């Protein structure tokens, strides 16, 4: 009940501020389309760097979208309502993360095959590209949200957020880009995907609790 109300509210809020949805997507597309111009349009070079480029761009796009995740709620006083509510904080927090990923993370997954194609990755690995981002971006969103919750009370927490969160992003980045590279080389993919899945399971189950705790700490507890 509270979860559904929170989810529809978060979707509505994001939907009414389209810049929040478009900015990360635009960033993702732009960064990736600049690489062929800057490095070399040669197919073999592009195919070599493509996994890393795709994943670094996705990681930064997700981080970009997370800076203000709780700020508006804090400034408007909604966060206090959330923390004093009889509903456990983790419930609306989970709804918020889900809504946020659906409107900022999922679009990245959906455009990724086009960008992968542009970076000269063979068509047979496009599925793996999407799957790796489908498993990886929610994990990035949740991990980033922990940092966002901890820095919500600070003005200009952007850099601090990056410092806090980037080390935790590294495993996701390694396995995310790694699985695409393995697929390109024709190696066995399921094992690496399983590790990504495990990272997602870990962050999705424990992450919201950490976010809720982070919000409590930020409010002064």
């Amino acid at each position, binding site marked *: 009940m509270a979860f559904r109300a929170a989810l529809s509210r978060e979707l509505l809020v994001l939907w*009414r501020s389209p810049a929040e949805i478009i900015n990360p997507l635009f960033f993702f597309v732009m960064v990736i389309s600049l690489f062929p111009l800057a490095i070399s349009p040669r197919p073999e070079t592009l195919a070599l760097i493509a996994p890393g480029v795709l994943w670094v761009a996705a990681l930064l796009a997700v981080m970009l979208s997370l800076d203000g995740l709780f700020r508006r709620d804090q400034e408007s006083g909604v966060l*206090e309502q959330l923390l004093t509510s*009889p509903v456990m904080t983790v419930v609306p927090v989970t709804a918020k993360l889900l809504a946020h990923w659906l409107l900022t993370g999922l679009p990245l997954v959906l455009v990724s095959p086009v960008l992968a194609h542009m970076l000269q990755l063979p068509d047979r690995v496009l599925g793996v590209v999407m799957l790796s981002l489908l498993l990886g971006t929610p994990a990035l969103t949740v991990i980033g949200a922990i940092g966002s919750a901890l820095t919500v009370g600070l003005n200009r927490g952007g850099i601090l957020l990056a410092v806090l969160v980037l080390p935790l992003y590294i495993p996701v980045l390694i396995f995310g880009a790694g699985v695409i590279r393995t697929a390109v080389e024709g190696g066995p993919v399921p094992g690496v995907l399983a590790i990504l899945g495990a990272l997602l399971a870990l962050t999705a189950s424990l992450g919201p609790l950490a976010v809720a705790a982070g919000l409590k700490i930020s409010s002064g507890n």
Partner: protein
Amino acid sequence: MSDTTLRLTLEQLQCERDDRELFRDVSLTARAGEIWQITGANGAGKTTLLRILVGLHGFYEGRREWWDESWRSELLYLGHQPGVREELTPLENLRFTCALGAQSGDPMAALSAVGLRGFEDVPAAHLSAGQKRRVALARLWLERKGVWVLDEPYTAIDQDGVAQLDAQIQQAADAGTLVLYTSHHQVGDGVRRLHLAKGRAEVRA
């Protein structure tokens, strides 16, 4: 829950902020049906005290005790900021805070009661400060909760609104709600007062 069990006890409550003592020796017992006005100069710690009461601020010494663990579901807290998101309409805002506060009631009727009939579908960004405050205050016209903690509820409210709010607070207290609020405005004659001044706290009951 029977309203008579409802109680808040503060003993020797003390709070420091940025190496400055906000207040000390705040001791009081507040019971169902009482209205407590918390006064004090700007920066005296009124908001901090309310935040301690509702569990938002954990750095204090002394004892703060609600009657039992069910206080959370009986609490209606309106903070310094109205808690209204500008992207949403008053109706959407109210529906969400109700779902979050596990509070039932008719949001439309509550919005009419606070004079926002006709504004329910206008994005809150287009509302005035007073109207936003009224969106938050509309919760006072929904299902009655056992404890109201209101931080400056009269901010930006016009004269008629003040009178209306007075009546609503008085009525809730008569029905057994414990009301604690900060403001320089006094609701009525039977109001108990906690005055914070220069770190000391004075109770006038």
